[in-house]
């Protein structure tokens, strides 16, 4: 009976009855009689169990054995409004989820990695990553038809590995307001730890600024727990070394840091504070003031090498920071949480219409902006000093003050704005309940 209910389809946003009929037919065809769970497939073992995070069902679709192309299917049932897909490859690099086809037969993510996907910029085939994650919808330009979705998990390389695959079905109906459970972790800061964080005045300033910005999106941040890095790792993880031995795009020690998210007693988003993240990058300098474990990160799935957000204090003592610096850290924290929940930069460093950006190998301008239509963009014509980058100060008339602009403006300007489209995405991440 439950299976029948799950298979009785309706479509969000698609008003056309023909589309509705197709959706129903697709859903019925996809019913597998096990409550709408994942369809067993060659190369996939286990799975079938579910756990819950608030109103989100975390459905274990099994373990994909790679290399190869593990094809899976799962149902978005009648009471689900948004969903996520996550493939956790442990520390193995280059896990992709592609292609993805919706119940109506429309391809959302193509098999090709060097094109712009029909649903817009996404990181399901991003290079290196050990955990592939996608939030749907991740913009206001498409909706989520109910029914059976087909997708594949693969590794871009040829190494033998496996990936645990999850579908996160969000049954939340009211997206006007929600809460975000946060766990805060501290590594190697002399005057800030799990015991004193919530009464530390400097940390209070930082946290208040973070909370203020999220509240603009109707999201109430709630700190569920504070944690210290294990004593044996306090020195090692205080400064994150830049070595990326497994070439998954993240420093190995950042992976160790994010894996600490598995120690929490209440599931939520883990935010880590460290002294510094190393900037040694051969001929170049890579500066990291904050970093998220993906766009989006793997949602409420904790313990993976990408389950978290890290913020550098740039000091061994938070008490040495000025109020302005603390506020800036709070904005960085909000910016990174924005990434983790699914937001891209509104404009990348080189400008919204540029095709040759530092680090980009595919010259498509759509990769310089987010897929959300209502966010302003800053084209190269705003680069008034002609240095090849558009700064927040140059883009004040566009998106220079948007929380997700690539850098912060000069004081007294504050980068904290969010558009309705960005709030739409933030509210739909399963971490927001």
């Amino acid at each position, binding site marked *: 009976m439950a299976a029948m209910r799950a298979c009785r389809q309706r479509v969000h946003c698609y008003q056309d009855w023909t589309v509705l009929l197709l959706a129903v037919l697709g859903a019925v065809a996809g019913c597998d009689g096990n409550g709408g769970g994942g369809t067993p497939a060659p190369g996939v073992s286990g799975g079938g169990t579910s756990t819950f995070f608030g109103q989100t069902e975390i459905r274990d679709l099994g373990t994909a054995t790679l290399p190869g192309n593990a094809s899976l299917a799962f149902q978005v049932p009648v009471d689900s409004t948004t969903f996520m897909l996550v493939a956790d490859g442990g520390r193995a690099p280059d896990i992709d989820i592609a292609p993805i086809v919706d119940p109506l037969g429309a391809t959302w993510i193509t098999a090709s990695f060097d094109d712009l996907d029909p649903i817009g*910029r996404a990181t399901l085939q991003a290079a*290196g990553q050990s955990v592939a994650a996608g939030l749907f919808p991740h913009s206001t330009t498409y909706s989520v038809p109910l029914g059976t979705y087909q997708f594949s998990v693969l590794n871009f390389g040829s190494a033998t590995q496996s990936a645990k695959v999850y579908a996160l079905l969000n049954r939340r109906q009211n997206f006007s307001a929600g809460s975000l459970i946060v766990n805060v972790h501290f590594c190697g800061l002399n005057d800030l730890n799990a015991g004193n964080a919530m009464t530390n005045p400097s940390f209070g300033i930082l946290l208040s600024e973070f909370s203020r910005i999220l509240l603009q999106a109707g999201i109430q941040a709630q700190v569920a727990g504070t944690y210290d890095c294990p004593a044996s790792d306090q020195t090692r993880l205080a400064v994150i070394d830049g070595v990326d031995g497994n070439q998954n795009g993240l420093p190995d020690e950042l992976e160790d840091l994010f894996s600490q998210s598995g120690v929490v007693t209440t599931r939520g988003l883990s935010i880590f504070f460290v002294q*510094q993240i190393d900037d*040694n990058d051969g001929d170049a300098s890579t500066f990291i003031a904050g970093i*998220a474990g993906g766009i989006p990160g793997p949602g409420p799935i904790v313990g993976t090498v990408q389950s978290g957000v890290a913020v550098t204090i740039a000091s061994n003592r938070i008490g040495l920071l000025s109020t302005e610096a603390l506020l800036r850290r709070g904005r960085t924290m909000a910016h990174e949480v924005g990434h983790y929940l699914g937001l891209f930069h509104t404009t990348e460093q080189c400008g919204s219409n540029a095709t040759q950006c530092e680090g980009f190998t595919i010259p498509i301008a759509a990769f310089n902006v987010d897929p959300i239509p209502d966010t302003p963009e800053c084209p190269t014509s705003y680069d008034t000093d002609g240095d090849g980058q558009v700064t927040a100060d140059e883009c004040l008339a566009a998106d220079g003050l948007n929380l997700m602009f690539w850098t912060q403006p000069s004081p007294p300007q504050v980068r904290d704005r969010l558009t309705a489209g960005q709030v739409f995405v933030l509210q739909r991440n399963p971490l927001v309940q």
Partner: protein
Amino acid sequence: MAAGMRQRRGGIRMALVGIRLWLVVLSVIGVTGCRDLAQAEPDRRAALRALLSAEEVRVTPETLSGMGSGVPQLLMEVAQDAEEDPLFRSRALSLLRHYPDEPRVAAFLEGMVNQKGLNPVLLRSALHSHGTVSRGKAVPALAPYLSSEDPLIREAAGRALAATKDQGAMAMVKQAADREGDPSVKQRLQRLAEQPPRDTKQPTLEKRSPSPFGP
């Protein structure tokens, strides 16, 4: 005679007028030029600040050269400004390693390394940049930090000495690794001593975006 004097005075007057005119022209050109410089300076400062403020940004030597001359001076100003955010100061110190041919940068970094009571995060950046910029000449200033009470400073000193690519410095790193008591620092120092100095770029495996991780 008097007429001759008048003619000569007239000539001198004309010459003075001409000189004045030239001075006016030159001053106009000068003022305009200064205005250009004054305008360029804030732009360069703002562009630099944008780099220092970004959550994640990769700065190449080309990025810096695209910002024109005068950048090392601005970086040194930021690095030594005690009122400035330590995030910006440490980044400025780190970027100074891209100016190995500027003697004033080498001298500045040596001064920072020798500064007492410097924030450890700034000191770590200064150590590494000094080792990169001054190579073998930096060894005497860097070596004492291998005995710092702060394990992270010992590790940073090892990294800085490795960056000098100096044979004697590498031997010091190896000795420091042998006597190091902190397991994680020991491991890092051993790695530095056993491997050639890391001059490799991060892998550029990017398929779609510069980083799958929230920059």
